[in-house]
């Protein structure tokens, strides 16, 4: 436990010193919120809707940091450590791969948490965003979306041969999910045909669930996205630990 805390403290410091994630996971979501806020203000999402456009987009905004951390930050940090032989040095110490992966995993959970809290504070104070549904349901779906996305990143980082491979895989996962799953471009403005295609992203499932939970809309079939995301989590973490490469 002591080792975990010291590793977490030092690795978090290094990560913040690097600044990438501070920009992509904390500042960028706020910028997108501000842009949407200035365009839509407190306007309703559609004529006659009981909630505002920003309330409808809040869940999606929370996934920008999840995308940045899980699909860019986490895989790149782990594969970079592998390529720079930092993991090789860890291999000749008593530390387990699981501990190292969980330390990095926790760092990105913290980024996602900070991002969610700053977004909520800004949206509530400036644009009067109110939650129509329930906080526990929203936080539950947020947690599930975050853990499943981070576990994909953990798998890519755990097994990618070098940081170049990891970065290619990360880009293939990151940009489509960031742009098309509803994280930046609201799902509602996409044409029907496109909505059908992007539904296959696990992120899209998470965002839909978070939105319903935040707005208090009825959910037709919550079991399906929950099952998909839980399965992704278990499979990805299992693969990451089982096939972990030190170098």
């Amino acid at each position, binding site marked *: 436990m*002591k*080792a975990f805390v*010291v*590793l977490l403290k*030092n*690795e978090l*410091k*290094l990560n913040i*010193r*690097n600044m990438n994630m501070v920009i992509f996971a904390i500042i960028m979501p706020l910028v997108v919120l501000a842009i949407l806020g200035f365009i839509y203000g407190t306007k309703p999402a559609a004529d006659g809707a009981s909630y505002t456009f920003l309330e409808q987009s809040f869940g999606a905004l929370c996934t920008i940091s999840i995308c940045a951390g899980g699909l860019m930050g986490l895989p790149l940090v782990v594969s970079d*450590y592998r390529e*720079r*032989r*930092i993991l*090789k*040095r*860890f*291999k*000749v*110490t*008593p*530390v*387990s791969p699981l501990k190292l992966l969980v330390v990095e995993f926790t760092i990105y959970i913290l980024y996602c948490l900070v991002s969610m809290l700053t977004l909520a504070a800004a949206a509530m104070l400036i644009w009067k965003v109110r939650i129509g549904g329930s906080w526990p349901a929203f936080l539950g779906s947020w947690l599930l979306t975050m853990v499943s996305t981070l576990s994909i990143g953990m798998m890519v980082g755990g097994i990618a041969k070098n940081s170049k491979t990891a970065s290619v895989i990360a880009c293939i996962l990151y940009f489509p999910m960031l742009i098309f799953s509803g994280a930046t471009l609201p799902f509602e403005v996409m044409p029907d045909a496109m909505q059908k295609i992007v539904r296959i992203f696990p992120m899209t499932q998470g965002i839909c669930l978070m939105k319903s939970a935040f707005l208090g809309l009825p959910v037709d079939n919550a079991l399906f996205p929950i099952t998909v995301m839980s399965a992704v989590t278990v499979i990805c973490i299992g693969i990451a630990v089982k096939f972990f490469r*030190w*170098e």
Partner: protein
Amino acid sequence: METAIKVEGLSKCYGNLRAIDNISLSVKCGTVFGLLGANGAGKSTAIECILGTKAADSGTVTLLGCDPKKDRKKLFQSVGVQFQQCDYQTEIKVSELCEETACLYKSASDWKELCVRFGIGDKLNSAVKNLSGGERQQLFIVLALIPNPKLVFLDELTTGLDAKARRDVWKILSDLKSKGLTILLTSHFMDEVEALCDEICILKKGNAVFYGTVEQAKEKSGCEKFEDAYLLLSGEEVMEK
């Protein structure tokens, strides 16, 4: 006397290149063993196969009575390693790297004191990347000693150090040896090998061409100076006649 390192029939190929060929060696507890040879002779590959960071094609290795692959977590509580090429997180400071290393062990030694002994006590708040080559080398020896090890591997331990720093390192290692530490080292400095090593093994293109003490090497080659004996035995002798 107990055996700290027992290697039998260790071989490793990279494609067609035989990096090490059927190496066997045995190092007693509390002694210093030197693995010598020209660049590319297979020293680092041998160390990595012994540690289990590279998979050997054949052969068996026992370190402190453990199998380095199966008993990794237990074994590396009491083994320290300094690799020839060491890397570190880009922005990390000396104190952070030491702390992060120390926290992994049950009975880590006081890393601040080790840094002071190795002459980098005033660099704790510097970024590792800003250290000079010699200071960084000393830091990596400190990292290998942080576990309070029973056995330590030092690959080219004093490369980049000035004459005074080299002597200081010898002194510290001799002290630790007298307290029971077993050391396996590689070096290109024959004065160092003569000063520290109880036994040596000279590698040439992956084969062990000499195994014994420094005195035996001099006898076998008929040379008075150990460096000459090494050059003769390793087949690196300068063409002067």
